[in-house]
Structure formats: structure tokens, C-alpha cells
């Protein structure tokens, strides 16, 4: 943990608020799912909020972000409107993806969030290409590409990281390591020293950090973003834990008894709260942040619940330009 003498109360209060918003958004989404309002799968990131917030808070709006199937937190942190996101999760009109994507394809290009992805690891190559375009155009921004610990066993991890280094692209890879690949302990299917050592073998500087400590994440992110701007690709490995199931309906019975209970004491939001309390912020103030987040997401939930589904014929929009996708769909 970082020395508290550097503790920037305003900043961490702000980050705390953001984490509360993510948690509240996902609680509202799970609630909606349980009520039958979300028809597809959702993959909550409860317990992993620090990595999302600590990284994204250090990005500019025009920096680019790509995420995984577990992307609500990243998308919100990057500045997306939660109503549009919730509308998307419910497949409603006004959703970011016009109801075509749902949770697994959540994206908000207007804030540089280029999409969650339903295919593990597929975002890596796409992110590398986004960074390649930035370099070609001589723009002064970076790409952040987030993936899970399971993704490092897919080919794109090798191809994408090698590529990023060969062309020296402005990209920060982030491995959010929650220990699991769906129902499997990732370590059982992963050889060698893990993402950091693999990245290093490709000439990419990489380090492991406590991903549940918001200060650590924040400072590591700041440091590494500067490094990326100076000298190309880097990788951050954040240790965290998925406090709930792989999807919202997964009871996660494959976990050793009591594992998750024990991990709640390491909840990044609770830890951040403690830091703020120690630094003199009142419990009331923190509750207020939390309640505001809950209230915001309750509003968002209601907006989404009451919205209508997109017209059926919108299914023919945005297929492709040449040829009329409706009249010539057969």
C-alpha cells in the first residue's frame, strides 16, 4: 500500500464514488436480470471495480479503451452514460448499440470505448490495430486493452503483444486477474510465470500489482500511461477477485468453501472506504456517495425498464451500405 502522506482525499473520494456507481449499476442490472428484464447473459465485475476506475480515471476522453465480456465497469469509467448502457442491457431503444449488442457487446464509441467482446482475447488484436492507426495518423493518444487471466492462453495474446512491440505502438495492456476462467482455476491451465513473464519475453515491460487497492492501481496506471506515451507498449497485471459468479446466474459452486466470503474483506470498495475514513472523511459523507450512486442507477433502471424495444425492422439497419439489406436480404 502507498504511504498515506501522499493521499489525495478529493481524488480518492471521486474514485470511491465511481466505484460505487459501477457496483450500483451492476446490482441494478442483476436485479433486472432476476426480474426477467435482461434476456441475455451478464458478467458482473463486482469486486474488480478498482482496476476499472483506477485506470480509466487517468485516461483522456479521446484515449481508446477495449474490454471483454466483463465490461460494464470499464465502460462506465470511460465516461459512458449509464442510461444508454442499461437500455442496451435490456435490449431497448436508446441503448448504446441500439439494442443490437447487449451486455457482452457494450460499447460507447463517443467516449472512445470500442467495445466489449464476446470472444475471449479477440479484443487484443483489435486494440493493437487501433494503436497502429493512432501511430499512423501521428495522434497523441493511447489505447488501453483490458483482458482476463484466461485470455493469456489464446493465440492473440502472443500475436498482439508481439505486434505491439514490433511497431512500438502506444498501447497499455491490462490483465485483470481474478483467478478464474469461467469455472476453472486459471492456474490449472496456465503454464509458466503468467502474463508479466510472457509480456517480458516479448520485450514488453510489465509488472504485477494489487488490483484491489485503488491507490496502487491509480499510481501504477499513471506511471504506465506515461511510459506508454514515451516508449510504446507496456502491460499491467492486476490481482483481483470476482466476488460473484462468472455470470449473474452462476452460483459459483466450484469455489472452495468460504473462499469468496474471505475475499469480501478485500473488496476494493470497502478498502477504499476504510482509507477515506482513516483520512477523516465521515461515514455519512461516504454513505451519501453510495446512496447517490444507488439512486442514480435506480433511475437508470427505471428508464430502461419503461423504454420500448426497438422496432423489429431496425434489424435491417447497419448491416452494410452496398445492396439493400432488407429487400435483398435473401
Amino acid at each position, binding site marked *: 500500500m502507498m504511504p498515506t502522506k501522499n493521499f489525495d482525499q478529493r481524488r480518492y473520494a471521486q474514485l470511491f464514488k465511481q466505484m460505487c456507481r459501477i457496483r450500483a449499476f451492476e446490482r441494478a442490472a442483476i436485479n433486472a436480470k432476476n426480474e426477467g428484464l435482461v*434476456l*441475455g*447473459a451478464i458478467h458482473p465485475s463486482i469486486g474488480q471495480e478498482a482496476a476499472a476506475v483506477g485506470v480509466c480515471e487517468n485516461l483522456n476522453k479521446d484515449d481508446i479503451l477495449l474490454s471483454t465480456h466483463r465490461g460494464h465497469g470499464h465502460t462506465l469509467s470511460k465516461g459512458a452514460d449509464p442510461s444508454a448502457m442499461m437500455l*442496451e442491457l435490456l*435490449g*431497448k431503444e436508446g*441503448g448504446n*448499440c441500439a*439494442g*443490437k*449488442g*447487449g451486455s*457482452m*457487446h457494450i460499447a460507447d464509441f463517443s467516449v472512445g470505448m470500442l467495445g466489449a*467482446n*464476446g*470472444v*475471449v*482475447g479477440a479484443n487484443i488484436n483489435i486494440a493493437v490495430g487501433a494503436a497502429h492507426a493512432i501511430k499512423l495518423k501521428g495522434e497523441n493518444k493511447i489505447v488501453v486493452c483490458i483482458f482476463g487471466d*484466461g*485470455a493469456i*492462453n*489464446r*493465440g492473440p495474446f502472443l500475436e498482439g503483444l508481439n505486434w505491439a512491440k514490433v511497431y512500438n505502438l502506444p498501447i497499455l495492456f491490462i490483465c485483470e486477474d481474478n483467478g478464474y*476462467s*469461467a*469455472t*476453472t482455476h486459471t492456474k*490449472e*491451465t*496456465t503454464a509458466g510465470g503468467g502474463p508479466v513473464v510472457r509480456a517480458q519475453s516479448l520485450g514488453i515491460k510489465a509488472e504485477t500489482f494489487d488490483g484491489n487497492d485503488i491507490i496502487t492501481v491509480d499510481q501504477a496506471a499513471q506511471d504506465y500511461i506515461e511510459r506508454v506515451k514515451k516508449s510504446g507498449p507496456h502491460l499491467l497485471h492486476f490481482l483481483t477477485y470476482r466476488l460473484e459468479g462468472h455470470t449473474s446466474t452462476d452460483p459459483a459452486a*466450484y469455489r472452495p468453501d468460504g473462499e469468496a466470503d474471505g475475499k469480501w474483506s478485500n473488496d476494493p470498495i470497502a478498502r477504499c472506504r476504510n482509507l477515506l475514513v482513516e483520512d477523516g472523511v465521515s461515514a455519512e459523507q461516504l454513505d451519501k456517495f453510495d446512496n447517490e450512486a444507488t439512486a442514480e442507477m435506480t433511475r437508470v433502471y427505471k428508464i430502461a425498464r419503461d423504454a420500448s*424495444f*426497438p*422496432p*423489429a*425492422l*431496425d*434489424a*435491417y439497419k447497419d*448491416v452494410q451500405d452496398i445492396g439493400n*439489406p*432488407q429487400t*435483398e*436480404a*435473401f
Partner: protein
Amino acid sequence: MKQMTYLEAGREGLAEMMREDTSVWALGEDLGRGGVFGQYHGLQTEFGKDRIADTPISESCILGSAVGAAMMGTRPVVEMRFSDFALCAVDELVNQAAKARYMFGGQTRVPMVVREPSGLWRSSAAQHSQSLEAWYAHIPGLVVVMPSTPADNRTLLMESIRCDDPVVYLEHKSLWDFEGPVDDGAEILPIGKARVARPGKDVTIVSWSAMFHTSMEAAEGLAAKGVDAEVIDLRTLWPWDKKTVFESVCKTGHLIVVHEAVQVGGFGAEIAASVTENVFSDLKSAPLRIGAPRIPISYAPTMEDEVRITAEQIIEKTLNRVGK
């Protein structure tokens, strides 16, 4: 005779084969926990971690290693989780598995089964709902199997595992809970043989997988309107049972092919074109294909339903075609 779900019947078929033949093993992600839909539930307990192998998230190695393991005399059953993820291992399937026997001049065989849960599953959107059976039927060297019933999901899986060539085995995700009789002494049809599930004289409806059931439902509706439809469950797309289909169309004069996949370039085109080429003079109307529009699959139910084929649509289009 037992009553089982489609999922249970597949699991049962695999377990039977694993008991019968120790060279059979299965590999894929999360199989130890039963697989993502429960198709492997309990099997690791019975057969151990070597024969029900949990793998890394490494689709090209899952499929590619199975090719090598098959060449070495084992019979891997590869679980791809969603047919969409099999797109991460196409070189391994198409350039390697399908061609190895041929391009090495018969020196080897690649007896493997690639299970790919396929098709629409409510609000799974564009990357978790595809039906790509037409692709596999187009590739020399691949056998393509698409069971529609619990009984078939048991026996066709067993036959596929016994097959000495690579089989793409497409189970439909919306059928997992579908119940039906298995092991009931009924004749076991081999790969390559279609089933005339409902004899009829007015029109031939050819279908497979989930759409077979929709076609049966449509046949009931058609009966109520005085049209006696013959419904054929194709069961396997390669080889496909031309004889049964041609004979039926010769009798009825009308062909409707129904599939969930995109109509453009779908396997319905192959059937329609073959039927036309072979029994042209017996046709009373042009073979009609009913498939999905050429658009990706949406998340929102309203738009998703645009690609979903219903019994009503089949009824309406069939009535139109047979002129009633």
C-alpha cells in the same frame, strides 16, 4: 425405453462410448464442471481428468491437438462450447483435420468429433447464435451431423465417435431441455439417412435440428388447412439423404426447405438446387427455401425475432406455394 432430454441423451451416448472404447476421450473448457450447458456433468467423476480433460482457453490447440491425438489412434471428442468459438480454430478443422487423410494419401485417419453447440439462444446476439452448417457441408473430408431429437443425439453421437473421419457435430442450444424417448428399440438410422417423420402426400418439408420441430408444428397447422405435408428430418447434412428427399418430392411435387441459418448460401440452396436438377419434371412448383435474412443476429427480442422462423411463416409460405 427411457425418457431423456436431448442434453442427457448426448451425455449418455458419450458415456456409453467411453465405457465401450478406452481410446475415446473428451477435451474442452470447463468440462470438469460439467461443460457450459451441463453436457458433461458427472463424467469427470466417472472417467477421470485424463479422459474428460479441462483445457486452457486455446481453441486452436483444442482442435489442433485433437487432430494429432486422433492420428495417434485415440478418438477425441472436442467440445467447442459455442459453434461461434470454433471460428478460432478453422485452420485446424479445415486445413488439417479435413484434409489430413487425403493429403497424406491415406496414411492416416483423423477420427474425431467436434461438438459445436449451435443456433439461436435467446438474446445471445451476433457472436453466440450463429448456424454455419453450410460451411462444413462445403468442405471435403468433413461429415456433418445435426441431431434434432434425444434419440438421435445419443445414437448419432455414438456413430460419430465410431466414425473414422472427422465429424462436425452440431447440437442446437435451444434443444437441450427437449425431452423424448431414447433406446426404445426403434430402428437406429445411420449417418447419411434421413427420417420421414411425418408421411404426407401434398408437399415435402425438409428440415433439420431445431427447425425440424418447427416444421412438424407447421405440418399440424397445414393439416388443419387440408394440406398433408411430408416432413423429413435430414439428420445429417453430409452425406445427405438425396434418395429419400428426391422420392418424396417426386411424390408430392413441392419442396420447402426450412433452416435457421442465413438463407443466402445456406444448405437449403444445395437441396433446392439438387432437387431441381434431379427431379425437375416432377416439380409442380419451384422449391422454396425458408431461412434467415442475411443480417447478423440482434440482441433485442424484437429484432432477434426477425431471423427466427416460425411455424406460422412456414404455413403461410407453404400454402402460397401449393396454391391453397
